[in-house]
């Protein structure tokens, strides 16, 4: 004997409060008979059925509905699989914002993301870097001893404020650069988006703590220079992901790691030391991501290294006529390391800053070596790096 339509008993539930979910669920398996007591059931069911393309027949004690066309899953396209192993080489624009592993309805209008090549953005390190980044998030209100005493001389405080002014400006550039690429990355590369987003959040926190440290004893900050901004501008204006990430993360943030560690060691007070120590931990992850995806990219594309070298040279040429690091920042570093204006202290501070500059150069040469540059070329490129450090 043929089975009759499945019964959907809505009782007092109307289609104005979700009754259509029950009807739609039942329609997946074929024709249904709907009964219910809601006073507007007849009006609403007819309107709903019309919009759904269902055929409706009114009965004495209910309504019969025959399903309409249009299962959106028919013809839907798979978008790889959820895990990192499911990343494809070139996700198409028609996958749009779909979660990796979802199925995309056929006919979905494409959304263009120009960073859509695995070779350009991917590294297998991404899931690990993201997990580390999430676990390493720190709360400035808790992690920094904000009430620690500041008992160093006023002029050393001025030097700290100048350094913080410089750091905020540089961290702002370090926030904007990944933010721009984040918005251009195909969402299929979920882990890239996540790592870049956390990188932005890290920089937002750095901007907060450096600003707050600068304002502990001063109402105004230090000097922002034309040369410093010109240097950072070349980072903001670099449209190529590999080149920008090379200049920012490998060369710039790599050098910044040394700088932050230097201030974490020589800073005159526990607050300055803590903000720089915590920021340097985050920056190390940013450098690691830049290194990891560029190493993979370089291994797949032999043309990348010459392009990276050319980018350093181009940036050097663009900045040739600028002052580079402002004298205020350099002098502030010396004074912070010295701790006082005593001539022998200044000499110590001077030597320490010379050591910092040498350490930055060494770090750049090591990282360039890890990217496959021969020793002599690495040394030459490192020497061309901006005098602004970032």
């Amino acid at each position: 004997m043929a089975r009759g339509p499945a019964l959907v008993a809505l009782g007092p539930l109307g289609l104005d409060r979700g009754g259509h979910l029950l009807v739609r669920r039942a329609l997946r398996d074929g024709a249904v008979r709907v009964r219910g007591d809601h006073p507007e059931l007849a009006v609403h069911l007819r309107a709903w059925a019309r919009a759904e393309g269902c055929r409706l027949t009114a009965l004495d004690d209910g309504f019969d509905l025959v399903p309409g066309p249009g299962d959106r899953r028919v013809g839907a396209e798979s978008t790889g699989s959820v895990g990192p192993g499911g990343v494809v080489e070139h996700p198409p624009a028609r996958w749009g914002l779909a979660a990796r592993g979802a199925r995309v309805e056929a006919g979905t209008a494409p959304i263009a993301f120009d960073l859509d090549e695995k070779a350009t953005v991917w590294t297998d390190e991404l899931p690990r870097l993201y997990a580390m980044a999430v676990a390493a998030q720190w709360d400035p209100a808790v992690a920094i001893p904000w009430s620690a005493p500041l008992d160093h001389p006023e002029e050393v405080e001025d030097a700290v404020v100048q350094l913080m002014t410089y750091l905020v400006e540089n961290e702002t550039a370090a926030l904007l650069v990944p933010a721009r690429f984040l918005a251009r990355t195909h969402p299929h590369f979920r882990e890239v988006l996540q790592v870049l987003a956390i990188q932005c959040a890290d920089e937002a926190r750095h901007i907060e703590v450096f600003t707050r440290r600068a304002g502990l004893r001063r109402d105004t900050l230090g000097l922002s220079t034309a040369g410093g901004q010109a240097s950072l501008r070349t980072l903001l204006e670099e449209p190529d992901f590999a080149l920008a990430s090379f200049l920012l993360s490998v060369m710039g943030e790599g050098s910044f790691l040394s700088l932050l560690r230097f201030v974490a060691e020589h800073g005159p007070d526990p607050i300055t030391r803590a903000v720089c120590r915590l920021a340097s931990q985050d920056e190390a992850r940013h450098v690691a991501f830049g290194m990891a995806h560029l190493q993979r990219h370089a291994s797949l594309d032999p043309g990348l290294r010459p392009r990276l070298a050319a980018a350093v040279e181009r940036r050097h040429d663009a900045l040739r006529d600028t002052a580079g690091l402002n004298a205020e920042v350099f002098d502030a570093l010396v004074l912070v390391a010295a701790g006082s204006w005593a001539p022998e202290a200044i000499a110590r501070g001077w030597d320490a800053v010379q050591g910092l500059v040498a350490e930055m150069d060494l770090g750049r040469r090591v990282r360039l070596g890890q990217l496959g540059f021969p020793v002599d070329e690495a040394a030459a490129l490192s020497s061309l790096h901006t005098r602004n450090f970032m």
Partner: protein
Amino acid sequence: MRPLLLGAVAYDPKVVTIWDGFARFFGEHGLPFDYVLYTNYESQVEAHLDGRIDVAWNSPLAWVEADRVARRRGRSARSVAMRDTDQDLASVIVVRADSPIRSLADLRGRRVGVGAADSPQATLIPLDHLAEAGVEVEVLRHDVLVGKHGDHIGGERDAARALLADAVDAACLIDANHLGFARDGTLPAASTRVLATTGLYDHCNFTAFEDAPAAELARFVDLLLGMSYDDPAVRPLMDLEGLKAWRPGRTSGYALLERAVDRLGTLDPWLAGRR
């Protein structure tokens, strides 16, 4: 072969997306096609009567206008196709759930909020329904984009809001908007009660006159009726235009509107200028 030229009224920016999409679809299927947008249905009907377009995507009121002028001139208009969602609609007259109004008779002399003056679904057919029941009311119109025959939802939404704000005692809506307004929170669930439901009527159709290019028009209708919602290439277009299937045109669903415009004299001034 010159392109089949369609007229449509731009009641929303998406109209461009819709007809660009259809033009592409028809072109890919060997039917040269182009379209012209009008700001109001009266201009479109005039252009159609003058032979400046071959087929018009007409509101039900525009259909009545085209049909009546055509008859006067010894011509004939046809409805060649319509959406499944254009067939068998109903309008509702709703009151607040706590209203003492229990029957249409209780509405006598009360304030009734309707949509735009030329909206078949939110004004003309419900007012005819009231008149047929012998109930005279004070009509408060919510004129959003007059000339677009109520295609824009704004007039009905304003009427619904006026009901909740107690500015009117009843509001007139198409059935689907009563459900839609419940879902989007304009009329929260259980805040209103349906007092009356009109008879069933039809909405838009593609209208052609007797002198339309026969082969192109036949191809146009064939292609429409052949569109399947299961085909992902055309589904987005059908979603935008709000249908699951095209149906052959019919004119049996316009009786209520014909009666309403006769009773209310809606078209008299316009028709007077078009002998």
